[in-house]
C-alpha cells in the first residue's frame, strides 16, 4: 500500500465528498463495536450507517460502515482502523466491484383508496407485505441504498408512521476480486 503512486491523487480528490463503504473483518468479542465506534467519535468521522454480524468463522465478525468524506479523510479512517488491535482487515469497497444491500421495514398509513397503490409500489421494489391493519400496512423490502432511498421517498407521500433501516452490508463480487494484496 505504500508504493509511491498511491500518493499522486488528483487534486479534486481532496474536495469531492463521497460516500464510501468500508468492510472490516474484526475479532468477535464484546467491546469491539465500542472500539470501532469510539474511534469514529474520537476523530469526528461521520458514520452514515453501521452493521455488524458473525461470519463463516465464529472468531471473526464483519462490520460494514458507510462513511461520508473526501478521499483524504477516508484514507485516514482506513489507516486509523488498521491500527486497532481488533481489526484484521479493512477494505474500501468500490461501487462497481461489490454488492451492497439494506433491509428496510415501513409502517405506512393506508386507506381503502391508497392500499392498492402502496402494494404496487412495494412490488416494484420486490418488497412484500409483512402485516396489515385497518389503517396501516407494513412493507418489508431489501435493495441497494438507491432503491431503499427511492421507496422511502415514494411511500412518504402516503405518510410513513414508523420505519427502520438496517444499514448496509456489502461484499466484493467474486468476479471482481483481486489477488489478496489490498492492505
Amino acid at each position: 500500500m505504500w508504493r509511491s503512486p498511491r500518493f499522486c491523487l488528483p487534486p479534486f480528490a481532496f474536495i469531492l465528498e463521497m460516500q464510501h463503504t468500508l468492510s472490516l473483518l474484526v475479532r468477535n468479542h464484546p467491546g469491539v463495536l465500542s472500539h470501532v465506534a469510539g474511534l469514529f467519535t474520537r476523530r469526528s468521522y461521520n458514520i452514515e450507517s453501521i452493521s455488524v454480524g458473525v461470519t463463516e468463522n465464529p472468531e471473526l465478525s464483519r462490520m460494514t460502515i458507510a462513511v461520508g468524506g473526501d478521499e483524504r479523510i477516508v484514507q485516514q479512517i482506513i489507516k486509523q482502523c488498521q491500527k486497532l488491535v481488533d481489526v484484521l482487515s479493512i477494505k474500501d469497497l468500490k461501487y462497481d466491484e461489490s454488492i451492497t444491500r439494506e433491509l428496510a421495514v415501513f409502517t405506512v398509513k393506508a386507506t381503502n383508496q391508497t392500499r392498492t397503490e402502496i402494494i404496487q409500489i412495494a412490488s416494484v421494489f420486490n418488497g412484500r407485505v409483512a402485516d396489515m391493519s385497518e389503517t396501516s400496512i407494513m412493507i418489508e423490502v431489501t435493495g441497494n441504498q438507491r432503491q431503499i432511498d427511492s421507496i422511502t421517498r415514494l411511500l412518504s407521500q402516503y405518510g410513513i408512521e414508523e420505519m427502520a433501516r438496517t444499514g448496509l452490508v456489502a461484499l466484493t463480487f467474486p468476479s471482481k476480486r483481486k489477488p489478496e494484496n489490498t492492505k
Partner: protein
Amino acid sequence: MKLTGAQILIESLKAEGVEVIFGIPGGAIMPVYDVLFDSGIAHILNRHEQGSIHAAEGYARTTGKVGVCMATSGPGATNLVTGLVDALMDSTPIVAITGQVPTHLIGTDGFQEADIYGISIPATKYNYLVRDVNKLSQVVAEAFYIARTGRPGPVLIDLPKDIQNAVTEYVRPKPVSLPCYDQYFQEIDEDQIDRAIQAMEEAERPIIYVGGGVIASGAHQELYELAKRTHMPVTTTLMGLGSFPGTDELSLGMLGMHGTKYANYAMADADLIIALGARFDDRVTGKVSEFARHAKIIHVDIDAAEIDKIIRAHIPIRGDVRKVLTLMLKRLDTAKLKSYDKWHQQIKEWKTKYPLTYPNPEDYVMPQYVVEQIYEATKGEAIITVGVGQHQMWAAQYYRFQAPRSFISSSGLGTMGFGFPAAIGAQVAYPNKGVFTIDGDGSFQMTIQELATAVQYHLPIKVAILNNGFLGMVRQWQQLFFKGRYSHTFLGSPDFVKIAEGYGAVGMLITKKAEVRPAIERALEINNTVVMDFRIPQEDNVYPMIPAGGSIKQMIG
C-alpha cells in the same frame, strides 16, 4: 500449580521483567496487593493515582521499558485517565492495572464501580476487561506486547475482584500472536529508500526534522551518523530534544511555536525536509497551507496513519526509524550529495542575527538565567522533567540536551502537574543520576502532594520552581491576544519553603540573581528532596512565538 488470579497476575508481571509498580491500593485491588506484599516486586506508594501514572511514564520515558501502575476501581481508575491520554499522545509504553467490582456487580452501580473499560477505550492503545481467570496470563503477555511494540502506547487491564480471588491452574502464556495487530508491520519498501536518497542528492537546502520516534526507536546514533555524513542541519521537536546533541554545530535547536527563529526560517526555506519519527503537529506547522511550501518531504514513521495526516508526504517511508536509517546509511555510501556551503552560510547568518536572547538585568531573577545556571551546574547531564507552560518552553530553549531520554516533558497532551511525579519515576529508574524538575508554580501545585512520596522513598530530586505567581502561559496569551485582560490567571504564591519542610523536604527561597547559582550548587549536594522557589518577574514572556494557526510572517519577538 493452582494459583489465584492475583498470584497469576504477579507471576505474569515477573515474567515480563517488571521491577517496580507505582500505585495506590484500595478495596477492589486488595487481593493483588496482598500477593504483591512479599512478591519481590518493588512498589512506590503515591498520594494520587495521577502521580502513579505520571511516575510510571517518567520511568518508561527514561528507561524505554514498560512503566506499570496500579489503582483500585472507581475513582482510583478514573484518576489514571489523564495519564493514559498523556501516554497515548506521547507514545509512552504503559500498562495500567485497575481493580474492578466482582463480575456479578458490574453494571449495577456498585460501590466504587466505574466503567473504566468504556472510559479508557479512546484513552489507550488497547484495553482488557478480564472475565475469565484462565485467560489472565495470556492477557498480561498480550498487554505488554502491545504496549511496547510498534508505536508504543498505554494498555489498561481491568481486573474484577472475584477474578483476582478465583483459583485455577497456572499455565504459562503461549508466545503472543495477534494476527490483527502483527500484519500491520510490513517490510520496509526499499524502493522508497532509493527515492529518498535520490531526493537527497538533488537537494540544495535540506533539513532533518526529528521527533520523539527517533528516541523511541533508539536511533540517535544512526541519526548522528546521517547528519555528520550528509552535513545536513538538524532541528528537533519538543519530544525529539536530546536525540541530537544540542551543542553540536549542526543543531538548530527546537522548532515550532516557541522554537528558535533560525530553525523556523530554515524549515520555511528548505527544499527537502527529512522527517524522522515526527508527526507535523500543529505546534510545529502553524498554518498548514503556509508551512514549508518549497520543500519536498520525506516522511519516515512507524505509524502509517501519521503519514499524510497533516501534510502530504512526497516520499513516505513506513517503518521503524532505526531500521530505515540503517538502510539509508548503507545507500549513502554510493550517493553523491551536493555541498551545502551556501545553505550553512545562510543559516549562520540567521543564527547570528536572531539568537535566543533575553533581557538579564542584575536586580531580577530571570527564568532563562535560572535554566542556564542549572544547565551549567549539572554539566548538561541531568535528567530534566518539566511541567507545562512558560517554564517548560524556557527549559526546552535554554538547557542544551546531549543525550536521548534526558528531557521528559508532557508534550502532546500538555499535562500540568506532570513534571514532579515523572521525576519520581525517573529517579526510581536511575537512583544514581541527577534528576531535576523545572516546574512552574501553577504546574507544581497540581501534583504537589507527591512531595510525600519523594521524601518517603528518599528520592533526592531537585525541584526548581520558576515562580511568577501566575498561570504564566495563559497570562502571556491574555496579554498578547486578549488585550491584557488577565481573567483568572493570578495564583499568588504559597510559601513553598514551608510546604517543602512540612513534607520533610528541604526548601529554599531565591529572590536575588546572585543567590541563584549558589542555591543550585547547594541543592545538588543535599541528599534529600529539595524545592527551590525562584521568584521571577510576574510578566515575562516566552519568545520567539508564532501564534497558533500563524505562519513565520506572524512571528513575534
